Structures are given as structure tokens and as C-alpha cells.
């Protein structure tokens, strides 16, 4: 319990720094020095200090949006085994609850965007509603595969304890597909290139960024922090699949885990640096690829491994 709490606090504190690491990687590819690793902390502190401007079109839903999406993301972190430690909370079927909680966060993010009556935000909201549908199918397909392999349905069983899912076990080879698929889902759900460009400056091409255009001050800080947590959650899944090892000593585990996390974030940064974003109508095909990959992984597991 104590250890889990420490790891959770560590995750919460490191999430903004990891997100800044992506910027560093991108700066490296751009031949720049890049902003400091604590940049997101500076931004958050700045935002928390500010007041807000609310659009006259908005209602209380607009103010609830950031809070609820932040709560959802935080709660998800509480159920994730970090560095192979048992999470704070866990029960049979908690994954379903978590995916639907992220859905709740998405509902309110979209509702907050629609509250502003802005056509651009509506456009972003429509995309935000569209792509995750396919992601959800992929994630549930992954759950089916994990359930087949472990006979359990909670994150703690998948990623901590004696028999975590991992690339390097007997049944692990098809999991390579799952890793790629989860990486695609990670890019999509967290609005990264090639689905969305967090650094873009044209409202027409944005997805997530355009939806939060009207938020400001502490509300916007909650949104930012929530999105760091969400990215951390998906990265944890990928990391634990690639690196399922635990030594039994928490400090060693922590170093290995957070090191591997840095690798996953580097991979995101490299992807962002070497790829352009897809045309909007190509995105569904890209996301659908992830579903096909997990589906193949399941078929292979059923036919050859088990």
C-alpha cells in the first residue's frame, strides 16, 4: 500500500516531465536546444496563478468539463500498476470501468467544446468523438486476448504480480502486434502525430487543441494535467508489455520502469519528428490497423501458442 502510494505520487509528479521529454526529442531532431524539462511545470504554475475568461455562450458544463476529465484521468492512474507494483485499487473487471471512465472524460470534453458555439470546436469535437470508437474496439480486443492468456480481467493481473503480460514469455511473440497496436491507440487517444498535431497552429486541422481553445487559467491547467496523466497511463501499458521484468526490489524496479517509460516517450517524440500527420480521411484506416493487429495476435495465440 505504502509503496503503491509512493509510486503513484512519483507517476503524478513525473508525468509532466515525461511530456516535456517529447519536446526535447523533437527539438533534438529539429537541431534546437529545446525548452527545459520542467517547462510544463512552469506552464502549470503560470496557469494556476491566472484567472479565467469565459465565453458568454457557455454554461456550467463548460466549467465541469476540465474537472471531470481530470478526475477520470487521475482515477485511471490509481488503478494502474506502476513499475509492477500492485495498484492502490483493483477489482475484477476494473479495466472496463476505466475505459468507460475515460469515455466519461471524453463526453465532458466534447460537451465543454460544444458549449462554446464555436464552429472550430464543433469540428474538433466531431473528430474527438469519431476516432476513439475504433480505439475502443482495439482496446477491448486486447482485453479479450489478455483474458485468454491470464484468465483475469484487471490491470493488476495483467501488469503486476507473478505472471505479467510481456513480450518475452512463451506466449509473448504475438504480443509484439499488441505493442504496436497499443502504440497506435496511444498516439490516437492522446492526439499525437500522425493523428493530430499538438503543435499545429491552424484551427481547422486540430483535434484536441481546438476543443480547449476557450479554456483558460486553472481550468486549462486541469486539462493539461489530465492529458499528461492519460498519456502516462497509455505509456505504462506499452512499457509494461515491452519490459515486464520485476526484480523484487522496488528501487531497481522503479529505475527499470521509469527508464523504459523514457524510451516509449522517446519513441513518441521520434514518431512526431519523422512523420507528417495524415490527411483526416486516412486516420480511421491508420487506427483500424491497430484493431487488425490485435485481432491477428488473438488468432495466432489461439491457434499456435495456446
Amino acid at each position, binding site marked *: 500500500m505504502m509503496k503503491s502510494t509512493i509510486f503513484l505520487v512519483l507517476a503524478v509528479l513525473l508525468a509532466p516531465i515525461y511530456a516535456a521529454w517529447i519536446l526535447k526529442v523533437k527539438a533534438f531532431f529539429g537541431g534546437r536546444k529545446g525548452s527545459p524539462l520542467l517547462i510544463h511545470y512552469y506552464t502549470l504554475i503560470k496557469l494556476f496563478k491566472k*484567472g479565467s475568461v469565459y*465565453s458568454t455562450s457557455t*454554461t456550467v*458544463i463548460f466549467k465541469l468539463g476540465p474537472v471531470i476529465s481530470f478526475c477520470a484521468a487521475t482515477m485511471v492512474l490509481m488503478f494502474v500498476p506502476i513499475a509492477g507494483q500492485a495498484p492502490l485499487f483493483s477489482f475484477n473487471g476494473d479495466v472496463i470501468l476505466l475505459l*468507460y471512465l475515460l469515455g466519461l472524460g471524453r463526453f465532458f470534453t466534447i*460537451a465543454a467544446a460544444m458549449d462554446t458555439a464555436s464552429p472550430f470546436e*464543433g469540428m474538433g469535437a466531431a473528430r474527438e468523438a469519431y476516432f476513439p470508437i475504433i480505439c475502443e*474496439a482495439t482496446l477491448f*480486443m486486447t482485453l479479450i486476448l489478455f483474458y485468454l492468456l491470464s484468465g483475469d480481467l484487471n490491470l493488476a493481473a495483467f501488469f503486476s504480480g507473478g505472471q505479467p503480460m510481456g513480450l518475452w514469455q512463451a506466449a509473448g511473440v504475438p504480443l509484439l502486434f499488441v505493442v504496436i497496436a497499443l502504440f497506435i491507440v496511444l498516439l490516437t487517444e492522446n492526439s499525437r502525430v500522425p493523428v493530430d498535431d499538438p503543435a499545429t497552429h491552424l484551427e481547422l486541422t486540430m483535434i484536441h487543441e481546438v476543443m480547449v481553445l476557450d479554456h483558460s*487559467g486553472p481550468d486549462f491547467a486541469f486539462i493539461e494535467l489530465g492529458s499528461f496523466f492519460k498519456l502516462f497511463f497509455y505509456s505504462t501499458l506499452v512499457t509494461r508489455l515491452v519490459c515486464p521484468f520485476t526484480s523484487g526490489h522496488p528501487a531497481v524496479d522503479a529505475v527499470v520502469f521509469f527508464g523504459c517509460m523514457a524510451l516509449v516517450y522517446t519513441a513518441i517524440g521520434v514518431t512526431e519528428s519523422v512523420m507528417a500527420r495524415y490527411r483526416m480521411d486516412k486516420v480511421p484506416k491508420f487506427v483500424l490497423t491497430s484493431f487488425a493487429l490485435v485481432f491477428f495476435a488473438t488468432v495466432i495465440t489461439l491457434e499456435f501458442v495456446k
Partner: protein
Amino acid sequence: MNQFFLAILVIGCGGILPLFLWRQFALMKAVGVLAIGGGCLLGLVDAWAKLSSPVSDAIVFSYLGNFSLAFSMDTLSAFFLIVIFGVSLLAAIYSFHYMSNAQKAMRTAAHYLFFSLLVAAMALVVTAANLITFILAWEIMSLSSFFLVIYNYEAAENRKAGYLYFIFSQVGAMFILAAFGIIYAQSGSFAFKEAAALSESAKILVFVLAFIGFGSKAGVFPFHVWLPHAHPAASSHISAVMSGVMIKTGIYGIVRIYALLDWHTVIFGDIVLIAGMLSGVLGVVYALGQHDIKRLLAYHSVENIGIILIGIGIGMIGVAAGKPVMAVLGFSGGLLHVLNHALFKSLLFMGAGMVLHQTGSRAIDRLGGLIKKMRVTGTTFLIGSLAICGLPPFNGFVSEFLVYMGGFNGVALSGSDFALSLLGIISLAIIGGLALACFTKVVGVVFQGEPRSAVARDAEEKGIMMLVPMVVLAAVCIVIGVFPTLFMTMALKAVASAGLGYGRIPMEPFIVMTANITRAAALFFTLLLLVLALRSLLYRAKTVTSSGTWGCGFTQPTVKMQYTGSSYAASILEFFQPAAPLSESHSPIKGRFPTGTHYHSHIHDLAEKQMEPLVVKPVLWLFDKLRWLQHGDIHLYIGYILLAIVLLLFFV
């Protein structure tokens, strides 16, 4: 059963008395509402007691000679009775202010008659204990709801909707009658319990026929064509009852016939599950493409019936595969979704009814910004939307969670059971995502943003009797979402009489799941309160100003520039193109200073589109060929009757 029949009697009074009181409009409404509501309350209390401490209760009336009327109440009936009486009670209260046109006093009185008949008939359907009683109650239910659908018969589209509904319900009843005919032919008895003695091939035939019949009432794809027409045509509280409750009698029929046949074959499960997946996914895709809010909600009924059937199908497969946990999870999830859908769908229809009542418009793209003027309606509609999307901590999540758990249990099976369980889970996931897209569209376009027309701008909230039921329903949606244990127990008790052959079902493993949901909800609310407190702390002594929405540099925004529901749904619909053909008409923009243009889109329902060439045309052709039989000569008609009787006497 005495209290039950007393309830029916009181409800009946609520139908008959208004006929004599129609000159005093308000009094007539009050009497109708009080009697129907009071009767529903009586029945609700009785059903609750019967479900809490189950006693087998049966009664037989033999007024009709050989055709005795038999009623019995087991836990399955009691469960459905709770849904029927609960929603009808609230709908009756809602009707008091909704039926506000004193010019149509006589018609309103007639409406109360048919409303009371509908409620009574639904209650009789789920308590009927033999074939004759069942089909009798079923027909009263279909006919009374038909008259309620054509309440506004002046509009041609409503007459068409009524006609379509009439045909579908009668053809559906024919299928049920055929199924019952087979049971009678083989068993020689009208009693329900004789059905278990049928041969296996007969059982398959009976189940398939009954499934088509009940499915057409429930709105299972492709027999749902009447549903998106009939629900918008009826008054909103009637839509709430029809969509929330009446179509569930179809589900009751399917579960009951499964229990009666008492044959745990996997074929039944496969049929139900496949039909459920089709209805679920296609229902929500078609819903996404609708421009009429009540039509959109009607398609969501198709979707939710799909979810219920996925649950029940998983349950049936579980029974056949000898996996009790999977079976109970599937059935209880499906039945709990019956209750949940009744709650949030009637809430949503009442909300849409309030919008329609105040703005006179059902067109999603003409509304906007309503939550500012209609706070209660907007908030409760938002809660209903969250619940129908299956999001925690609302009631829709609980039942979907149980169905998911059942499905995951099924994944451990092999062969077709594995494949179907897998598809069931994936369909549920896709349905969840699409429903979220659809209801962010409805809430976002209708209740948020800026008003798109004058009627939306001037809308306001009126009628306390309309608001109370919505608040009650929204509260129940949250209560079930946070404390599902009691309701799960109810569903489990109902499952006990669904003929799974388990005897007593242990509650403990399932209560653990619902307790976990309660814990998670408590955690979420704690977190939410903490963050809200933090937020108010952060905003203390800060300057908070308001200004226009950021127009990306454009200084002259108009409300017309807002994203519409059609544009919101366009790209998702394109993804489902072959299953949901979209036709658009759009006159191109010409010249430097373009004048007015228009855009119209319509999404075709595959079943409706194919019905014309595949069913209507061949049937018309056939009857055209048989026209010579109908020559108008009365002598020959009498001859037909004689001939028919003689043939029946000799050969049957």
C-alpha cells in the same frame, strides 16, 4: 393476485371516467392522471412485494368456456411489472401538463382511455399464464397503442406511421399466433407449461416464429421499421411508455418462450445474440444520422434492445455451455438493462417532449442553447444521455458491465461460442463509442451553444408536472449507477424464473461486482469533490471575466456558423457507408456573391429500403393475382364461408 387486479381496475377507471368528464378539461385530466397513477402505484407496490418475497400466485377465470383466462405472477413477471407500472406512473403524471390543448378535450379523454388500456394490457401480457390470455392481452396492447400513435391523425405522416405500426404489429402477432398454434397442435392444451413437452424440431420452429413476432414488437433489426415512424408520431409521454416499456414486452416474450420451451440449446442463444449485435450496431448508426430528435431516440431504442439481446444471448449460450456464471451474468445484465433503458429512455423522451412542447420543433439543427432557459430539462437530459451512453457512475454502465463480464466468461469457451462472445464484446464497445458520439451531438447541438432559431431563443420551461417525473427518473438513474446492489438482486430474482434450470442462484459472487461498482463510484465522487474544492480555492480572489467565444480571428460570427448535428455526424456515417447509405442534395455555390443554397441529407435504413423491393412488391403482386376472388358478389362470399366451414369440419 387481488391487489394486482385492483390496480388494473383502478387504471381502467382512469380510462373510462375521463370520457364522461371531458367537458371539464382540467378535472378530466386530474381524474385520469390520479386514477391511472394511483393504479400504477398500487400495482408497483404489489409487484415489489412479490419480487421481494416470491410466492407463486395464480388465478384462473373460466368465463369463456373452454378458453379459460389464466394469470400467474412469478418473479420474472413481477420484475417486468415494476418497469411497466413505474414508468407508466411517471408518464401519467407528465401527461397532466403535456396534454395542454383544451380544444381537443374529447380527444384527450379518448387518449386517457387508450393509455389506461395500454398500461393494463401490458400488465396482463406479463402475467398471462396461457396462450389464449396472452394473445388476447397482446392484441389489446397493440391496438390501444395504435390509437395512441395516431393521436394527431390530421398529419399525413402520422397516419402513415400508424398504418405501418398496425401492419407490423398484426403481422408480428400472426407469427406469435403461428408459434402458439404449433404448441397447441403438439400438446393439445392452451397451458403454457405444456410447451416443454414439444419435440425438438418443433421447439426450434416455435422459437424462431415467436422470436420474429416478439422481435417485431421489440424493434429488433430488421423488424424495427415501424419504430422510428411510430415513436415521433405519438405524444411524448406515450413515446416514453412505448419505447421505455411496451417494446420490452417483446423481450419478455422472448425470455418467457425460452423458459417455457425449457430446452437449453445453443441455437437459441446464437439467434438472439446475432440479432442483438445487428440491432445494436445498426440502430445506433442510424440514430446518428437522424435530424429529428424523437426519431433519433427511437433508433436508440433499437440499439438498446440490441444490448439487451446481446446480454440474453450470452446468457443462453452460457446455459447451453454449462457455464452458470456466464449465464446468470448475461441474463441479469440483459434484464437489468430492461429496467435501465426504461428509465433513461423515458427520461429522454420526456425531455424531448418538453423541447417539442415549448419550441414546437423536433428538428435538431433548428434548436440550440436550450439548457440556459430550460435548466431542469437540460440537466436531466444530460444525465439521461450519460446513462444511455453507458458511462459510470450512471445506471447504463451497470448493466453493460454485467453483460461485458458475461461476454468475457464466454471468451473462454471454444468454437462458435467463443467467436460470438468475442463479437458480442466488440459490438458492445463499438455501440458504446457510437452512442457517445450520438448523444454528444444531441446535447451539444440541442441544449448547448447558441439558439439557431427564434423558437429556440424564446423557449422557456413550464409545467411542474412535466418536470417532476424527469427529476425522479434522473435521480433513479444515478441511484442505480451508484448503488446497483439492490437492483442487481431484483434482476437475479427475476432470472431465477427464466428457466435456466439452476434452482437457487447464489447472490454472493454477483453482489461482489456491484459492490465494486459502488466503491469505484464513491472513489470517483470523492475525487470529484476534492478537485472541485481545489478549483474553487484556485479561483478565489481571481479576476473572472466573460467575453465572446474565440472566433479564430473572425469578428462577425453568427449562430448559423455553429457546427450542426449533420456536420457533426457526417464523417462517422461515412465510415459506415455500405450499411448506412447516405443521400445528399446540395446545390453548388456559384459566383462571387453566392445567393441562398441548401443542404439536405438523409440516411437510409437498410431494412426500410429493402422492404419495398423484397417484401412489399412481391406481396402486392401476389394479391393482385388473387384479386378475382374479391368480386363483390355477396352470394359467393357466403359460399366461401360455407366452404371453409365444411372443409374445416371434414379435415380438422
